[in-house]
């Protein structure tokens, strides 16, 4: 289990947990980041925002936000 920010480009992660308080969880889960959602990493430069693909959409997430999403690497 790793924070989303550590996922390499091309890797797929499955959301396990989201931290960061109820307000943040409420906002981000409405955009599709919920348990068991699959996330493909599209852009990750180890700093600055990441770009992921989730639920039919490309989403940009701040580095801080990406750290709060805990994923399990999915073997492809």
């Amino acid at each position, binding site marked *: 289990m790793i924070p989303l920010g550590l996922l390499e480009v091309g890797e797929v992660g499955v959301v396990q*947990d*989201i*931290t960061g*308080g*109820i*307000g*943040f*969880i*409420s*906002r*981000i*889960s*409405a*955009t*599709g980041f*919920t*348990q*068991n*959602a699959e996330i*493909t990493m*599209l*852009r990750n*430069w180890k*700093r*600055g*925002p990441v*770009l992921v*693909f*989730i*639920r*039919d*959409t*490309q*989403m*940009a*997430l*701040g580095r*801080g*936000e990406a750290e709060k999403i805990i994923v399990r690497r999915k073997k492809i």
Partner: protein
Amino acid sequence: MNKSTLKSVQNANTVALAGQPNTGKSTIFNRLTGSKQHVGNWPGKTVEKKEGAFKYSGQSYKLVDLPGTYSLTANSLEEIISRDFIIKEQPDVLIVVVDASQLERTLYLVAETAMLWTKIIVALNMMDIAERQGRALITETMGKKMGVKVVPMIASKNKGIPELLEAIKECADSGKPERKPAQQILEGDALALVKKVKLIIKGCVPSPYLEEWTALKLLEGDEEISGIMRNRLEPAKWQEIDSLVNDNSVLLVTGSKYEWIQKIISSSKQQPGREKTLARQNKFDKIATHPVLGKFAALGILLFAIIAAMIVGFPPAMAVMKVMPKVAEGTRTLLVSTPVWFSSMLADGVIIGVGIATALFFFLMAVFLVVGFLEDVGYLPRLAYVFDPFMQRLGLYGKSFMPFLMSLSCNIAGVLGTRVVDSWRQRFITLVMSPIIPCLAIWGVVAFIGTVFFGAKTPLVVVALLIVIVFHLIITSFLLRHIVVKGDRAGLIMDLPPYHKPNIKTIWGYAWMNGKAFLKRGFTLIALVSFVVWLLSYFPDGNIETSFLASTGKFLNPIGELMGFDWRLMVALIVAMASKEASLAAIAVLFGIGQKFTSVTGMIGATGIYKQEALGSILVQTISPAAALAFIFALTFSIPCIGTMGAFYSETKSLKWTAGASVYYTVSSLVAGILVYNISLLFF
């Protein structure tokens, strides 16, 4: 169509339009209403409200465009406005626009609205893009599964509009709305939890909220609903709720809604597995989202956009500016038998003011067309993505970068460019900050005065100015975020929708609607302020040097003295608030160089009628370098021009905020001037 005609539509059914941003909601709105639109603000808010009207088979309908939202939880003002309208105004029909090419996520709003007491139609837009992705859907199955009518559409190509109209009619004519009970959407633990909470709050939920929906929102940690229920429940009961609401309950409930969506999608796919993998970026997107290349691409595209706006907008604007003085002179000649003040009033006060506003209108339309194009294509979120880390240092989002850059050419363009910022709060912050960035006209004045006084050291002045501008931006951003519109910078969570082929009708509709909004507010304000400026500069005796404007300058002399100004520079600073271009002409007149103007408005666009060298040498003789430097800073930070404030009013639709921002710029201009004067006295 104006407000009164909209109101006169009697017995009209109310139809509300909801949807996430970038789903083509405004295209559908424009297609349904045509030109019968009215743009205003939601009562007491700076969030824009669009209303329209249409007729279908003998029945009148009122269409209300709700702000674009992802969900109906109270995470933003837009979401509160949308859900308040649905719950409290109870529209006869609610259309939820869904993007077929981003189906899973955009269906979330359907899951959100389905549990409310309202009749829903799902407008399944962008079917062409979905098809290109290899996604084929059986919309009938989808509708049946969701228990709502689904209308497939390609709104940009006008496909599906007749079907949507028919669906609206059917829906409006059908009986009372059927609400989907939670068990049709939620499952398992989530459903059990909702039922548990519903039992606790039974009988305590204020109308018009529904118990089940309230229970759901409590579990999602909705602040507004929690606040209401905390006051209504006995402490013991509230504690019981409080123990049930936590991180997990939020994830459980939202997760359950997404499971419902997934089930609907998988059951309505024509051939499972035919879809191309969507998780691939196209070639351009790879460049556009690259941290280095993406920034260059963005700067190139924006530069191109600004140039395009100038090419389109400047010729008609310049033509107006050219004709305007002739019309003014013609009027003066024609009215030669009338009192001088009367002909001057018409020529300098009315015609020039209206002329400026008209010229601006053409320029604005060009800016709107270009911004509309960038929005329609879907490029802007990429730009926001690459510039987000940079803008974050100002406490802003990446999307504010575009208006800031446009402000460098013209503050009016910058103010209008803030339209691309989605959240009203971020947009408002950007709106107030954009005019702080100096436009080309300001640089012109800075370069002139700088060279006259500081010669080869002018670049140093510019560097100092740039540093102060950055500090000004940081301080203003801080003040806005912590005092004026409280709330911290919520982190970056933004979707990058697929690219769309630009649609001329959509872009034109966007430009025309915003242009009309400008005509209604900004135009009037500019014409009015021009008239007032004329009044002040003409009366009492038709000579600017003895006018009320001059008396004001003399009256404000004590403030001017703090910056080392005499009354003439103070007047020039006041003129600069109306127009930067006119400020040099005003100085020339006041220092006795160049032709006499009977009014300030006549000076706008009057470059080249005085000798710059002569003006320069007179200024050096009469003004100290410290005062000149103070003037540069005070001018840079003063109100940019009446055009910008007109656009500001047109965009916020609030005189209160327009006046507030004007006061802020004036104060910061004076503070900058006074500080710079006193600091530079130590050196000069």
